[in-house]
């Protein structure tokens, strides 16, 4: 029980940051923009500074921090604290409470236009960490009200991998259509999944019972488990890791296109992270939790039946089963945008729809954006996102590429209440994208000639 809670608490707090930052989508000229759509290209070629060349962190979900933590008498307590009434704690929870972390750190990145200033290629080496958790409301109803019930479909997944991608984009239809493709070789670093399909609790006067059906799969190089020699049962602490090389390999593609419907109206569509990683069997530890325990009190005189193990509500105990290799799809995304430019391409108004296919649910995001670019090397974007039909976030983005540096920063944290640790309090999503690089080569000619000409003055 204790470890169960520790896991939940750790995941709550660890799952702190988010996915593709919609504010950065319309930051024209940003070197990071092609991650949304491989048909996009930056203003110039570039080489990123290692690690800080492109960092994207995001927390997307349908639950905000102030649904989980409450300020009480100068202290910060969790929703499970007894000073938080069940009505307060449960009032803001959804049927399924989703939290997702998506982190991308660029280790190495460079790209360049070809001689025609329109075809663009780039290479990126990224570390990706995805984490996702679903906590059904029934779990909290049990914890807050002590209500018995049937809790299902709760769990967490974590996936970490290296991504080496080569991107190429080129024009068609007299430059009105740009097609981009990124092929990505993936090296899986680690993967873990814990899922409970059933967690039934009964707390009756004459019977306490728990029925669990859960699974765990952990894959990483050098993973082994040391179960209890008598029972064959293991817990998280019994899993050993010695990662020295990838534990799985895979492949993915990003496909994208932009199309100029009118000279100042561009539509874009992309599917990213369409692929899989095949995780090896020999580096996988698997277990099942099929506990069926009940306590009805002892009977005296003894009825002569064999003694049973002490009753406990303990979860997170697994019986080891043979691991098997498995292919896991990445969390693919669909990004569809449209942007209209006015005032000689100095101001753009954009609308972006994003769908992210999570393990537990598909999350939908619509973002409206106003983008200001008085010169080509400067873009300032403001955005408002609606996440899963709920008002979500106001974001600001800045892209600077004056000739000697590429710098971009986009976040929806500036205008929202946040903790001293920069975690938003009332907002159920948080995004931060930043990067620093060095420009290389000549400028893009993808943009309309009149803009280019003005820019040169």
């Amino acid at each position, binding site marked *: *029980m204790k470890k169960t809670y520790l896991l939940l608490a750790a995941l709550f707090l660890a799952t702190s940051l988010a996915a593709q930052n919609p504010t950065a989508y319309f930051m024209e000229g940003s070197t990071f923009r092609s991650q949304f759509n491989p048909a996009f290209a930056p203003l110039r070629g570039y080489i990123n500074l290692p690690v800080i060349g492109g960092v994207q962190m995001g927390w997307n979900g349908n639950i905000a921090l102030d649904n989980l933590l409450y300020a009480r008498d100068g202290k*910060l307590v969790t929703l499970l604290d007894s000073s938080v009434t069940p009505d307060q704690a449960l009032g803001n929870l959804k049927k399924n409470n989703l939290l997702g972390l998506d982190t991308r750190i660029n280790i190495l990145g460079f790209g360049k236009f070809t001689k025609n200033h329109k075809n663009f290629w780039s290479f990126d080496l990224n570390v990706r960490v995805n984490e996702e958790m679903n906590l059904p409301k029934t779990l909290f109803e049990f914890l807050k*009200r002590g209500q018995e019930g049937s809790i299902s479909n709760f769990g967490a997944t974590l996936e970490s991998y290296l991504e080496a991608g080569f991107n190429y984009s080129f024009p068609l239809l007299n430059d009105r259509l740009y097609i981009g493709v990124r092929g990505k070789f993936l090296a899986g670093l680690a993967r873990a999944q814990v899922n409970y399909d059933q967690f039934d609790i009964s707390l009756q006067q004459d019977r306490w019972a728990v029925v669990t059906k859960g699974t765990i799969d952990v894959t990483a190089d050098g993973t082994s488990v040391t179960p209890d020699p008598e029972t064959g049962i293991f817990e998280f602490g019994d899993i050993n890791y010695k990662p020295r090389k990838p534990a799985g390999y895979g492949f993915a593609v990003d496909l994208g296109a932009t199309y100029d419907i009118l000279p100042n109206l561009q539509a874009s569509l992309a599917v990213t992270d369409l692929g899989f990683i095949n995780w090896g069997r020999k580096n996988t530890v698997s277990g099942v939790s099929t506990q069926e325990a009940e306590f009805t*009190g*002892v009977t005296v005189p003894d009825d002569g039946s064999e003694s049973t193990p002490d*009753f406990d509500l303990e979860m997170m105990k697994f019986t080891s089963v043979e691991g098997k290799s498995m292919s896991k799809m990445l969390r693919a995304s669909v990004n569809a945008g449209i942007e209209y430019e006015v005032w000689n391409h100095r101001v753009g108004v954009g609308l972006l729809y994003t769908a992210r296919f999570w393990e537990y649910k598909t999350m939908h995001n619509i973002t409206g954006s106003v983008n200001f670019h008085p010169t080509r090397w400067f873009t300032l974007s403001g955005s408002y996102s609606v996440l899963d039909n709920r008002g979500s976030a106001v974001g*600001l983005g800045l892209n600077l590429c004056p000739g000697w540096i590429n710098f971009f920063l986009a976040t929806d*944290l500036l205008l929202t209440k946040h*903790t001293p640790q920069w975690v938003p309090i009332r907002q159920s999503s948080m995004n931060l994208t930043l990067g620093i690089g060095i420009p290389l080569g000549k400028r893009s000619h993808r943009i309309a000639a009149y803009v280019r000409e003005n820019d040169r003055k």
Partner: protein
Amino acid sequence: MKRFIPLYVLCGICATACVDQNYDLTKIDTDNIAIGDESSRFEIPLARVIVGIDELNSNDQTPIDELFNEADTWLPTQLPDKDENGSFILVQKLTDDPEFVKNELLPELISEMETDDAKLDDVTSLLSERYYESFAPLLPGVTPETFQETFKREFRDNELLHEQLAEQVRSLAGNYLSTLDMNLSGLSYDIEHIDISDDIVNMLTDNLDPEGTPDSRNTLHIAGTIDNKLPLSLTATPVLTPTDVTFTADIAANRDGNEFPETQLFAEDLRTIVRGITIEISVALGKYYPGKGFERGTDTDTQLQINLHLIKRGGLKFDL
């Protein structure tokens, strides 16, 4: 670049102004986490103590059903007291009030023998079985085979002998009822271990209010019910040793679910109980309802079942 400096300053001001120090994640307090809240009430089963009919014996090891089967014969069918469960006799009154036996019960018994053939048959059968020799001086020459017929004839028709026979019956009945051995002893049961984990025990005990706390909200009690198939009302007093936990329960006859009062436990009491206890039960008899019980059979041997459970008020402590 310089013209954008005000923009950077503005962003910095916004970011700083939006910091809520009340949500400093370094100050998360997890000491007071519980399942449920102060209004919650949890019940958890603890033990069932089953008392079979073979364990209910008098001091001389006479089974309780034999003890009261003979009493049934000596008692008149019409008893002076009655409640919703039927006619009863207070067992304590039999031993403590000889005048009551002598002046109310025995005259009624003799009267019933004079008018009710069935009662006369019952008494005569008992006399023949157990007290034949007591009547030898009054019925000379009678044999065991002819006793019942002779006794009934002389009791009904022989005016001279009737009173002597009646007096002997009164003597035997009075002696039996007045000395009914009611001390049910030896009800002692060992519970070696209660199969709940330390984590569950900690959840129940870690946040209990200390003894003496006024208006306690986080409390633990032992409570339960007693199912009674006996035609006897009882006062049972289980003692859970080595703790000092004890309670007294008044148990109605022929009724399941007799509740006994909640008794408060403290943390060490429960830990001791879970490690193992002996339950010693002393029983005092109350009302006896003739002809309403003492059934023997495969599933009726259990005469008393004591169902113990715990009641935790307030949340279950969650130790992080």
